[in-house]
């Protein structure tokens, strides 16, 4: 019986029929999705912190409005994704608890500090750029609520990347100090950005199953290569460079070759020892705890209104 259900399930996936929350699904599929979607949601929420750091110091009202709108979008992305995960049977509070206790991961890119205004440019161009590269194929993910959330997210992401590129372009055409600031930002953000695609294919044992379930459409290395190829060309328009002396066009492969990634650093940051891991988590926990009275007050108010209605 169980076997039969699994076959029907896989057959639907093979035929590109979306799985909806009430449909039968293997427990492993459910758990994998809960982990993947909630980690993605956490990344959107924690991802507001590095950029939030610069809202009050944006160099103009135009830039400030844009950055505010972008950060607000990221909050929205987190909410779309949390709701999608909830359809799989986990509660919002459980997911928050997993984040706050450190059991759940989020993208390690957000554990790097934002030291200058140019970092807002580098994050938009590279970090949102890498996120888009990851997310576009997820618009076709086999789980309906996830795919629909990703469609909404992707529509909104494209302005994020463009505003970042525009910041860098403006700086790169400015004075020497501004140009240097932009280059410095690229030097710090480039490698962590290409780490965002995750470990190399031979180090990601779950990829095969995820691709069979169509909750992943390309391997980490495929997406990373695509991203490197695009950025290697775009950086020329900025008149800046990517900090990789091995970055060269390979005629036979039809791709850019690039230098070795420092995976030690990656695993250090993932396991909690990045420059800002502690700050980020503390900021989230503080926001949650400081908001407790608001949540309680709103519940109490709703209760009171309900009972008043009954009396009237």
């Amino acid at each position, binding site marked *: 019986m169980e076997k039969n259900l699994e076959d029907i399930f896989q057959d639907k996936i093979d035929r590109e029929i979306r799985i909806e929350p009430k449909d*039968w699904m293997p427990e492993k599929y459910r758990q994998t999705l809960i982990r993947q979607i909630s980690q993605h949601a956490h990344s959107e929420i924690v991802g507001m912190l590095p950029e939030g750091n610069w809202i009050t110091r944006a160099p103009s009202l135009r830039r400030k409005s844009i950055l505010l*709108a972008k950060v607000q979008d990221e909050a*929205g992305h987190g*909410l779309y994704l949390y*709701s999608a995960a909830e359809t799989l049977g986990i509660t919002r509070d459980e997911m928050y608890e997993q984040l706050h206790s450190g059991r759940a991961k989020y993208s390690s890119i957000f554990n790097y500090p934002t030291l200058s205004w140019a970092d807002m440019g580098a994050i938009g161009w590279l970090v949102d750029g890498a996120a888009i590269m990851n997310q576009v194929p997820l618009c076709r993910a086999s789980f309906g609520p996830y795919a629909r959330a990703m469609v909404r997210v992707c529509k*909104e992401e494209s302005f994020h990347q463009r505003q970042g590129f525009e910041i860098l372009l403006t700086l790169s055409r400015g004075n020497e100090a501004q140009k240097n600031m932009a280059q410095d930002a690229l030097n710090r953000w480039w490698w962590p950005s290409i780490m965002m695609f995750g470990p190399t294919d031979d180090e990601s044992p779950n990829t095969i199953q995820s691709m069979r379930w169509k909750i992943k459409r390309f391997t980490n290395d495929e997406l990373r290569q695509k991203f490197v190829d695009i950025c290697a060309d775009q950086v020329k328009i900025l008149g800046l460079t990517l900090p990789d002396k091995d970055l060269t066009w390979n005629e036979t492969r039809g791709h850019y070759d690039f230098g070795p990634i420092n995976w030690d650093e990656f695993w250090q940051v993932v396991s909690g020892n990045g420059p800002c891991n502690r700050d980020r988590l503390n900021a989230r926990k503080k926001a949650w705890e400081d908001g*407790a009275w608001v*949540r309680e007050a*709103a519940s109490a108010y*709703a209760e009171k209104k309900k009972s008043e209605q009954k009396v009237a």
Partner: protein
Amino acid sequence: MNKEWPLWEIFIRSRQGLDHKHVGSLHAADAQMAIENARDVYTRRMEGVSIWVVESKHIHASNPTEAGELYDPANDKAYRHPTFYDLPDEVKHM
């Protein structure tokens, strides 16, 4: 202390004259807050002119495992579709 705000399903009319369409869900303490949150979460780019919110617990759904029996009555009634009828080409405007 664990008291989550209830979950609400959000429906948005994107343009006057169109149906409200389900767009997702969110948590809110009451209906008013659900509408305000829905505005912030789902209409940041003028995606809507009207919002409906329904507490999720009030939604009753058909069971996907019974889809076969449930829709069976419509299965063999092709004559409900206009293409079922073979008419000569000379017949215009029908």
